């Protein structure tokens, strides 16, 4: 009974998502809104400003270095959380 209701609701959600996907800009279209603006600046300037020919490395380490520092902090917080969950709260000798 619970599984039947789950499958019906998930099929409804799936049809809704498919109707939304059909309204998106076509796959591979060069005039899509995602490709206007910042992409031309990154590809044109990254070899001269940073000296790296890997554009993605130049984006995440030079133009957006502070966000990558936050992500390294997330990794550290994950390790601290796992240690505190498994070893925390007990008095060790």
């Amino acid at each position, binding site marked *: 009974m619970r599984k039947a209701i789950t499958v019906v609701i*998930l099929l409804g*959600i799936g049809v809704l998502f498919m109707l939304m996907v059909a*309204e*998106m800009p076509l*796959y591979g279209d060069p005039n899509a809104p995602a490709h206007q603006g910042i992409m031309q600046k990154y*590809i044109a300037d990254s070899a001269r400003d940073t000296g790296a020919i890997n554009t*993605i490395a130049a984006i995440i380490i030079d133009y*957006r270095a502070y966000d990558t520092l936050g992500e390294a902090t*997330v990794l550290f917080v994950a390790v601290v959380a796992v240690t505190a969950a498994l070893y925390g709260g007990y008095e060790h000798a």
Partner: protein
Amino acid sequence: MDIIERLWANIYYLASVILFIIGFHTMLTHNNLLKKIMGMNIMDTSLFLFFVAIGYIRGGQAPILREGVVQYVNPVPSALILTGIVISVSFTAFALALVVLLHRQYGTIDADKIIALRSKRHA
């Protein structure tokens, strides 16, 4: 019909939606806690596919600057997804640590049995 033509052209987004529904169904249906965590991981992977597929330009090469290439693929969505992958790994690790704690406390990892044991213990 027009909708079928557009869905067939956007087939990578359609595959991402199907993966999302499969992951969601796995998370809701099974009782085992490890299978629920696997379902959450499948949902994360479907979102990564969706974002990276947005960045494709027809006729474009990989965004490593070199000679003789006229059109590059958009590098910005791929750079955003690197952060998302790290967050997915951290979340899965913490969820697994909580499953270890639950097993130590209740002796089982079946969600229905844990709820029954909790209601019996605090009755």
